[in-house]
């Protein structure tokens, strides 16, 4: 292959250039057969530790999620910590948190695809999986939150003899529609680029796997026409899903912003929530990638320091964006001088949960700004993992402050109160366990790296010598 020969030559070139092709996945190609085999091996080999983790997570899901939820349905929401005035508690925090996590998948995949950011290629699928699985947790959390969950279908517009329809003017109704749309669209968007890889897996597996992949691959053979259709569909989807992604979290923010409550009734909540979702989401993508790289076979080839570096830069930029929107929201509310908002802001900072407010600012702003500016640090998986974890804790705190802490203060001082989570703690652990469990199972069922995208990228990339400098060059295949 011409591309390979060229890049091999360049790796032996002189020292005057800093560019080392071995640092870049797309400049360090492997033969296609070998790469396919690597991905198949990563998918098919399971360490005993994997099964132990699955068993532990399965136990947690069975106890914390299934058993505790059934208990809560039987007893009523009294076993949770919600009360008057804090009618919404951790369940809604979890909903906002998981929708936030789900944002990164689409952002990393669709936005970077639209802008042709080449470093996205090896990890788009890992990110897209987070979208679908995160949305499942968000949906479950909303159902947990409902007082009579066995009547949840009353929120769905279905024809009935009493001519009763849901109230399309309620933000909760918009939520239902937005989340369903996003779940369907992101699952389709996950599936489309998966088809060639499923076909690859079908041709290289036996037994039940072959049967499964034969059904899932939809008879993909890799003809010119099929590729053209696939690229066409992917292009449409990547553009179409972006507005869906932005609208989902904006609509979630409207649940709060349209309410007549101090602290919630803020016009900037839409973009503030979107940037917050990206903040926690990109951090979560980095964490998942680091875990995948450390635990799965052959992943160190696909996910490299350059990817952590790129994600680190994204995290830093998004952190600055979040700080900007936070300041805007805080500043305008504080300057407005409304009596109730004044009480609320004071409650945030100096109330019993004040420590959370300061930790939120430290984790969301100070930690990323102080660490991610350094290329060496942000390229290190360990540092990026810790920073990502802290950002996610900080963003969880942010949602906790917006929902139960803010609900403690309202326009009726006689009913001010505090909130202590009860059974919510178990159910929260349950959603986290279910997310990890689904992800682990998926990592063994579908190729976690979009092989064809990596191969396409490697075909297009090469190092060209221009004068004495060696520069990476991209040929546009499309």
């Amino acid at each position, binding site marked *: 292959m011409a591309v390979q020969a060229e890049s091999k030559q360049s790796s032996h070139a002189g020292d005057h250039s800093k560019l080392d092709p071995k640092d870049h996945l797309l400049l360090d190609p492997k033969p296609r057969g070998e790469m396919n085999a690597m991905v198949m091996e990563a998918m098919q080999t399971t360490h005993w530790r994997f099964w132990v983790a699955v068993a532990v997570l399965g136990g947690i899901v069975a106890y914390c999620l299934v058993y505790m939820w059934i208990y809560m349905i039987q*007893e*009523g*929401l*009294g076993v949770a910590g*919600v*009360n*008057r*005035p*804090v*009618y*919404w508690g951790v369940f809604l925090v979890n909903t906002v948190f998981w929708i936030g996590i789900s944002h990164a998948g689409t952002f990393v995949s669709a936005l970077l695809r639209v802008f042709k950011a080449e470093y996205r290629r090896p990890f788009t699928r890992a990110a897209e999986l987070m979208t679908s699985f995160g949305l499942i947790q968000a949906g479950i959390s909303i159902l947990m*939150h*409902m*007082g*009579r*969950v066995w*009547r*949840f279908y*009353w*929120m769905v517009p279905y024809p009935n003899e009493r*001519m*009763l*329809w*849901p*109230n399309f*003017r*309620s*933000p*909760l*109704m918009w939520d*239902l529609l937005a989340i369903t749309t996003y779940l369907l669209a992101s699952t389709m968007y996950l599936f489309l680029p998966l088809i060639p890889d499923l076909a690859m897996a079908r041709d290289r597996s036996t037994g039940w796997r072959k049967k499964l992949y034969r059904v899932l691959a939809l008879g993909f053979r890799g003809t010119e026409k099929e590729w053209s259709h696939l690229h066409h569909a992917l292009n449409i989807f990547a553009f179409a899903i972006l507005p869906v992604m932005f609208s989902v979290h904006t609509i979630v923010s409207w*649940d709060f912003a*349209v*309410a*007549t*409550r101090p602290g919630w009734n803020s016009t900037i909540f839409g973009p503030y929530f979107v940037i917050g979702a990206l903040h926690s989401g990109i951090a979560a993508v980095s964490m998942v990638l680091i875990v995948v790289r450390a635990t799965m076979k052959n992943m160190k080839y696909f996910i490299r320091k350059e990817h952590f570096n790129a994600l680190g830069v994204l995290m830093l930029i998004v952190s600055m964006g979040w700080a900007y929107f936070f300041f805007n929201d805080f500043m305008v509310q504080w300057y407005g001088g409304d009596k109730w908002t004044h009480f609320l802001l004071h409650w945030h900072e100096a109330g019993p949960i004040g420590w959370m407010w300061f930790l939120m600012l430290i984790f969301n702003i100070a930690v990323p700004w102080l660490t991610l500016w350094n290329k060496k640090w942000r390229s290190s998986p360990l540092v990026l993992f810790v920073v990502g974890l802290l950002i996610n804790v900080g963003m969880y705190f942010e949602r906790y402050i917006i929902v139960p802490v803010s*609900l403690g203060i*309202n*326009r*009726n001082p*006689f*009913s001010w*109160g505090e909130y202590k989570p009860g059974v919510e703690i178990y159910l929260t652990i349950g959603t986290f366990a279910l997310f990890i469990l689904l992800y682990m199972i998926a990592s063994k069922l579908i190729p976690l790296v979009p092989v064809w995208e990596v191969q396409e990228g490697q075909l297009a990339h090469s190092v060209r010598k221009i004068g004495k400098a060696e520069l990476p060059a991209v040929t546009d295949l499309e």
Partner: protein
Amino acid sequence: MDKKIPEFKANFAEEEQGKWGLVVDQDLCTGCNACVVACSMENNVSFVGEDDAAYGRAMHWIRIERLWEGEYPEVKKTPYQPTMCQQCGDAPCEPVCPVFAAVHSEAQDLNAQVYNRCVGTRYCANNCPYQVRVFNWRDWERPTPLENQLNPDVTVRQRGVMEKCTFCIQRIRKAEDTAKSENREFQDGDMQTACQQACPANAIIFGRLDDPESQVSKMSKQDRGTELLPELGISPRVTYLEVRK
């Protein structure tokens, strides 16, 4: 279907009087809580027990707020403020309900709460600036023989359902039906709400706001009359008469 499907909000007009109204004279209220008890008896409101009540889950549809003016020891006044659903003309609780459980009754111009339709999202309660909605956090126990005192005119609510003061709508309907069968209009004194009936100081007056001759219309136009949170412009139907100087 030529029948009109109820709107999520009444056709709201500025300064509109509304149909039913309540006047609470804070000068007369002694804070004795008789209205709270009477309301609970009339409307089958559950008792939640000490622990849940202390945690903010008491289910009274009306609560006596004890307020202070001035700092101790220079306390000027300690008015009591019985707070129940203000039956707003432009209620914030109504548009946010996804299933039309919180809905405006066009016939009575009241905020209806359809218990059997409620799925328990609790958005209405968050959006209520007076915080007068109460939620059934559990299926509260009613040990025998207490079930015998249940009012047959009022639904018993299940866990996971929101509820609130209805201005004793079952009594309103009964009084209106009686008036109709006697071929006359509803007049003052045809009915009393449970809280009004129980009030030993006559601090609670209920009646028709759209009848200028009714006691409640006259009293609500007094100089002492104020609404709660008038700045929100949601036109509550309850008028509070301030404590005299």
